[in-house]
């Protein structure tokens, strides 16, 4: 892969509340400090992160805000006082004895771009804690490695990394209701209301990252590729974890491709099992039933099984009317959506308390988390695309690069350079925009149809055509060569004869 060198700069303000100053401060407040961290991906790709810390004490307004009773109230009060640019972080250090943070938690991460950190004795201990918080709120070595997963050697990547969606300019989200047995069930789902209520707020927030389009469909007679196993004990049907990979294929043929756009599709399927296979439960690897009755497929989407409660009497008139509980379904699908975007909240240390994002479904710092990863991924993608184009040109010399293709390449290079510069200045939003433009330009250049206009004759075919010329011409030359060889041999023999 092509060499990529990126420096990620995160501006951080560390604000000390009164009574929280560590004893061993090197200088009086305010002062600046820089910490660097190397993220090694492979030999040719180096990512360094640089945390530019500004240590200062609280202002009067901040002090008043920190006087709130709970952390949540403090967070809400502090929000208007903060630097709201994307990528920047504010840490409020509160005294060790502060009652703002509940017992046992040392860090509270708010809805926006700030955290409350309990002071921990010495400056070194505080800095260690701050580093942990910063990584959770911006990027970790593993999230950057996941973004650059194409470049990471196979063995070193965590299994989660391949789950995340590749960075793209847009995504299409399709909700499909699979009703394999319309004779027994008429299933109604209020997908329009559910999308407006649960999905749209999240996507509005994510619209900074990419364009999203949402649609839904109902597919009848769409069956899973695996026949579930009947379990006598629970008198239910079971899908074991190892059979799940075979479930999707036959369904996918029915889902329909997104012919009208080039964006990747995220599929979320709600499967209402046939009456003869109800109820249906998914088992995990240990054989225990999965509580959500759902699973996800990396970079593809998720499937949830929705069981219909059996009617009181088997003679109840068919078809049975089913109204889907959309809140239950959307909870699962949104969790899967977060998982696919790499925004899982599970890898956080236990002394951390994360504020729930509420109705928006996504905290501001989670958005930053996504932007950091996508910007780095975009830069790497552009570098790879342009390198492959150059390699292609080296291999096939007679490809014609038209002026407009060349200008797209120049634009891609300029954009990617500006993205790298903006990153090293700590301007996350500008860097992300530039990296998006770079991806667009480089893809346009790489996939320009004019590159394939000419007919290419490989060299061996050209040679084959000229064989009728070369072969007869070679015959007299070879014959005379043979003659020369014969004559020289004879000349060598003759003197021995004379002797």
């Amino acid at each position: 892969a092509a060499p990529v060198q990126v420096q990620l700069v995160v501006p951080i303000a560390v604000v000390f509340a009164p009574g929280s100053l560590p004893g061993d401060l090197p200088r009086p407040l305010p002062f600046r400090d820089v910490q660097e961290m190397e993220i090694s991906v492979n030999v040719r790709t180096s990512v360094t992160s640089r945390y530019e810390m500004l240590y200062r004490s609280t202002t009067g307004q901040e002090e008043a805000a920190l006087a709130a009773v709970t952390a949540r109230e403090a967070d809400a009060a502090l929000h208007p006082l903060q630097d709201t640019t994307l990528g920047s972080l504010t840490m409020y250090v509160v005294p060790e004895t502060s009652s703002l943070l509940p017992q046992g938690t040392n860090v509270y991460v708010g809805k926006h771009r700030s955290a409350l950190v309990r002071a921990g004795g010495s400056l070194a201990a505080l800095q260690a804690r701050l580093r942990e918080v910063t990584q959770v709120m911006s990027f970790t070595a593993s999230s950057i490695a996941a973004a650059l997963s194409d470049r990471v050697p196979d063995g070193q990547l965590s299994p989660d990394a391949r789950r995340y969606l590749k960075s793209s300019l847009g995504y299409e989200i399709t909700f499909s209701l699979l009703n394999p047995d319309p004779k027994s069930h008429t299933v109604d789902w209020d997908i329009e209301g559910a999308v407006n209520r649960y999905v749209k707020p999240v996507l509005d927030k994510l619209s900074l990252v990419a364009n999203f389009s949402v649609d839904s469909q109902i597919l009848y007679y769409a069956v899973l590729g695996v026949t579930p196993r009947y379990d006598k004990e629970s008198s239910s049907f079971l899908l074991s974890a190892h059979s799940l990979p075979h479930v999707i294929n036959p369904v996918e043929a029915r889902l329909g491709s997104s012919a009208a756009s080039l964006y990747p599709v995220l599929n979320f399927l709600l499967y209402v099992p046939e009456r003869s296979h109800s109820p249906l439960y998914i088992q995990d690897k240990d054989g225990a039933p999965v509580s959500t009755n759902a699973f996800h497929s990396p970079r593809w989407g998720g499937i949830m099984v929705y069981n219909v409660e059996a009617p009181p009497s088997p003679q109840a008139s068919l078809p049975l009317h089913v109204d889907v509980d959309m809140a239950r379904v959307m909870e699962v699908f949104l969790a899967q959506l977060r998982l696919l975007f790499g925004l899982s909240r599970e890898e956080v240390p236990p002394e951390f308390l994360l504020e729930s994002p509420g109705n928006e479904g996504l905290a501001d710092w989670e958005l930053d988390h996504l932007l950091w990863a996508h910007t780095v991924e975009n830069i790497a993608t552009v570098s790879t695309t342009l390198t492959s184009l150059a390699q292609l040109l080296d291999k096939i010399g007679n490809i014609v690069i038209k002026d407009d293709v060349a200008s797209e390449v120049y634009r891609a290079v300029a954009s990617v350079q500006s993205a790298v510069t903006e990153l090293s200045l700590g301007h996350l939003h500008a860097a992300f925009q530039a990296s998006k433009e770079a991806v667009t330009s480089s893809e346009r250049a790489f996939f320009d149809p004019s590159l394939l206009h000419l007919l290419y004759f490989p060299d061996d075919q050209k040679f084959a055509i000229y064989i009728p010329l070369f072969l007869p011409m070679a015959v007299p030359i070879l014959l005379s060569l043979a003659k020369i060889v014969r004559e020289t041999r004879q000349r060598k023999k003759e003197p021995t004869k004379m002797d």
Partner: protein
Amino acid sequence: GGMAAAAALLLLLVVAAGPGPGRAGAGQERRDALREELLLSPLPTGDVAATFQFRTRWDADLQRGAVSHYRLFPKALGRLVAALGVRELHLALTQGFWRTRYWGQPPLQAPAGAELWVWFQPTVTDVDKAWKELSNILSGIFCASLNFIDSTNTVIPTASFKPLGLANGTDHHLLRYAVLPREVVCTENLTPWKKLLPCGSKAGLAVLLKAERLFHSSYHSQAVHIRPVCRDASCLAVSWELRQTLTVVFDFFSSGQGKKDWSLFKMFSRTLTDTCPLASQSKVYVHISPKNKEKELLEVSPPPTSVHEAIVQGEKKTYAVYDLLSPSLFNTSRSLNVQLKWKRPQDSSEMPIPTLHAQRYVGGYGLQTGQICTLIYNTHPYRAFPVILLETVPWYLRLYVHTLTIITKGKENKPSYIHYQPAQDRRRPHLLEMLIQLPANSVTKITIQFERALLKWTEYPPDPNHGFYVGYSSVLSALVPSVTAMKDMDVEQSPLFTSLFPSSDGSSYFVRLYTEPLLVNLPTPDFSMPYNVICLTCTVVAVCYGSFYNLLTRTFHVEEPSRGGLAKRLANVIRKFRGVPPL
């Protein structure tokens, strides 16, 4: 009391605000309905035609709304209509040719190969770009080579192909029409077509659609029609209609083993066992009164649920109807196998001739010039009617327009409307549209001469010696006078096969006919010639080179005279005989 009155007033206000145009969709109950229908019509030749129609009607406006939620209407097509600003879309994929002269007027005819015509919304700014994109996407959906549609085979007809659905304006610049006559239709096109049906091929009439039987037939045509229609009689709101039609003609020699008695099982090797639970109507119609006959000649079994009489294509016809949704049908037996038996042998000499039919051929000899002849027949005994003729001819046949002659009954027939757009080499085809009056009981002959152009060697398709399908087919659109006056009927109540084309008034009915595609041989070069030339030249060069090389490199030295060669000895022998001294 006051509170209640206020509440009632509020309710009234809400109700009054309800059916506004902006509120459609949101919060309202989505209403979409599927109707399916199979029409079996025995043809005069003993063959049988089966026409399937599946109609999905959706009471929603596809052009509005950012979030789209589909139920019965297929998402792939719906998104296409919304994204590209399509007002009306008609795609037909056909294998074989409908023989109008022998089979009578078809319910739905399409030219051999692929035919696509689309009306775009007036909001579409770049129609050509949308057309190109649309054909590319459709070729992906239907696995057909529609991506070969480009400016050289697209025309903009001015008089033919008026919108079949709701339309405010008919500005023909929003219309595109293209035919690909070489397209071979097969299973890979049928599978995506079946996938668009809500029940797939799992239930309902679609279980009969088995590829190995459908393509073992003389004519197979599958089509998709999307158009906006009126939601109700007042026509204040728009509904979208998707019609999927499939027509197949089974040959009585190959499929019927020479017998004219048919059954569902004989045709499709399947019978109907259950209905599609999503369909609001599911019916099988069997045409039981042959043309011009009041008396029934056909006997159908099992006994039909009802008998339907309708005036179709100007004639009163009787149909036996099997309603699959009526509970009595599957009560007696588990499956339905409709059987058709002739009551008495049919006399083939009294085969009825359709009022309008046409034929076309290429005349002339040699590889330079030729002429296209079209014969249009009006067999109506006393009524004349006009017909619109659409001819598209590819650019590599250069039409001589001054040679255009239209002759009816020995006299020249002047068209009342003529639109001609000349071709541009490698850019666009010829387009000729004429409105011709056909006198009663007449044959009209239209001839036009052409010259064949020479193509570049890369422009020849594979297998160029097969010939070129040119002129695609000429399309005849006509309002043919009816024998029986038609009554106005409710479109929603009448069978689907009568309701695709709008009926104008009771005295005539609309017919669109396609003539046979023409196969023209173009001067075709010997494609191995360049290689032969290279070989020959190379050999000559090599021989010359060899002798020059020998001349330049050989050392010449005087050879001792030996006993002489064979010729010299032979000459000496002869000289000896003659008594001459030897050489």
